[in-house]
């Protein structure tokens, strides 16, 4: 008997469906990039919490500048690095709404350092999602503030020489030390288990806005196979071997309290 696709896709057979909060627009991201998955789990969280009509996103400048094409919520596209300031303006006039600042590493950790530090320090009651792939993807693979020592990019073609080019900045650890942050965590979305953990963290980061206790900051370490000049599979392996030791996964600050180092080490281990 010949089986058609429609014979298989039946209500009783469905084990997974795309959240309707993702639009039909085809993602502009490269295969293997963490943006698409992160977009999806953010939208799943917003769908599950039933807060679509109460959520406003702020898109950055970078690969995810077009985030508003894919996620079906109201958006503002901010100048490069200024998303937390735009989010501050939104939240201050609408404290009852859920405000999301979605940023990459160049946006959040280089040009927007001031806005990041001060929105965290003021304890703005917003959610910041920080995609860290250690490179400027949109502009074609230039060195980012988070590019690893020795890592090759189009503006560090012989590898990042920390003596002349400076060190990669661990923004997430940095903001965890500010009194205004309530939840600070580093996640990844390269494996099913990582996706589940990241989604849980993002859910918490949004739930926290109901508590009005300060800023929730979720870093997502991502691969950039185009920028790194690798296949998606190899890029994920490279990320595990090189990015994770420098940017260890796990919670850094939970409910306003720093996670003890031993516990944080434990969380890192699979």
């Amino acid at each position: 008997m010949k089986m058609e696709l429609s014979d298989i896709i039946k209500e009783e057979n469905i084990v997974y469906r795309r959240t309707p909060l993702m639009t039909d627009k085809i993602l502009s991201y490269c295969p293997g990039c963490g943006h698409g998955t992160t977009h999806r789990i953010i939208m799943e969280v917003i769908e599950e919490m039933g807060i679509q009509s109460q959520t406003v996103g702020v898109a950055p400048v970078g690969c995810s500048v077009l985030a508003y094409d894919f996620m079906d919520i109201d958006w503002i596209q901010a100048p490069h690095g200024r998303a937390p300031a735009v989010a501050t303006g939104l939240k201050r006039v609408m404290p009852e709404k859920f405000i999301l600042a979605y940023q990459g590493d160049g946006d959040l950790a280089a040009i927007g350092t001031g806005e990041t530090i001060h929105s965290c320090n003021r304890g703005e009651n917003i959610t910041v999602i920080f995609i860290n792939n250690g490179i400027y993807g949109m502009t074609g693979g230039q060195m980012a503030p988070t590019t690893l020592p020795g890592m090759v990019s189009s503006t560090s073609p012989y590898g990042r020489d920390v003596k002349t080019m400076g060190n990669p900045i661990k923004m997430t650890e940095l903001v965890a030390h500010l009194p205004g942050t309530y939840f600070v965590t580093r996640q990844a979305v390269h494996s099913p288990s990582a996706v589940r953990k990241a989604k849980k963290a993002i859910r918490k980061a949004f739930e926290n806005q109901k508590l009005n206790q300060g800023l929730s900051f979720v870093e997502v370490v991502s691969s950039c196979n185009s920028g790194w000049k690798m296949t998606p599979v190899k890029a994920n392996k490279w990320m595990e071997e090189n990015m994770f030791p420098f940017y260890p996964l796990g919670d850094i600050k939970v409910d306003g309290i720093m996670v003890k180092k031993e516990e944080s080490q434990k969380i890192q281990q699979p």
Partner: protein
Amino acid sequence: MKELRLMKGNEAIAEAAIRAGADAYFGYPITPQSEVLEYLMAEKPYERTGMVVLQAESELAAINMVFGAGSAGRKAITTSSSPGISLFQEGISYIAGAEVPCLIVNVVRGGPGLGTIQPSQADYFQATKGGGHGDYHLIVLAPASVQEMSDFVPLGFELAFKYRNPALILTDGLIGQMMEKVELFEQMPRATEFDQSWVATGKTPDRERNILTSLDLDSANMEKHNQALQAKYKKMRQEVRFEKFLCDDAEYLIVAYGSSARISQKTVQLARDKGIKLGLLRPITLYPYPYEVISDLADQVKGILSVELSTGQMVEDVRLAVNGKKRVEHYGRFGGMIHSPVEVLEAFTEIFLNH
């Protein structure tokens, strides 16, 4: 009963912001306008009207907080002075591109660079010709008294929301620091009467998501967006405002705005005392600019002097208006120096009567 108060120009801006029903003020201290933030913090407008007041970490942050609050359809205002206004420009360009209404006040000081803290009108080009990158314009209002500092706040909000465009009050350290009698207007509601269908406050089931962006990677669409902006700026021309002083029988004309208009008004009186038929045209909107009335007056007078606290910026718009019909010259002190009415009269006499 009239509510009269003796106030500094900067304080009048602050009180007017509360009374105009502003939802939020974001700012960063800079001389000569820090009284705005100081007044607001002392006045606790969040208790009076629910208005938010926040001191930002930089002008970059302040203008983007305004972008955020404005995107929610709220009345957001920020104030600064020249060097800080330069830092605003990135944000202003995005706000203009995304068509978000807001109100910005520039209490101008002498430049370039850190310049001086004394009054100047050298930011005219920046205010009226764009300032940031791209083809855009702000609605620009130029108060010439502390009363107008107060009155132009609700007017600025009204025009900003009417056209979904940032509005700028271009004043200077002279009017910002000067104390005058002000008749305060009554408290207005924080809501606006204008269309709010575009705001980013959360997508409800009855509409598509609202996206406030200045980006379109399709150049053909970006060209269309620019055409729409230009059509809007053309429509704004109906908002031209100006004031004529002794123009009816004038043989010569001074064109001056803001503090220079106040000084030039005295010059006109001094000239009249000497039998010189001098008149004054004061542009109140610098964008849209009153080209037509200046063009009409050019047919009547023998010569026109543009008086500004700069090396000559607005004079270019006066020349555009006059279009070669009559002689147009510039006079002004600059770098924080202020011309006196007598100096203006002497300059006028030297330029137009002694040659």
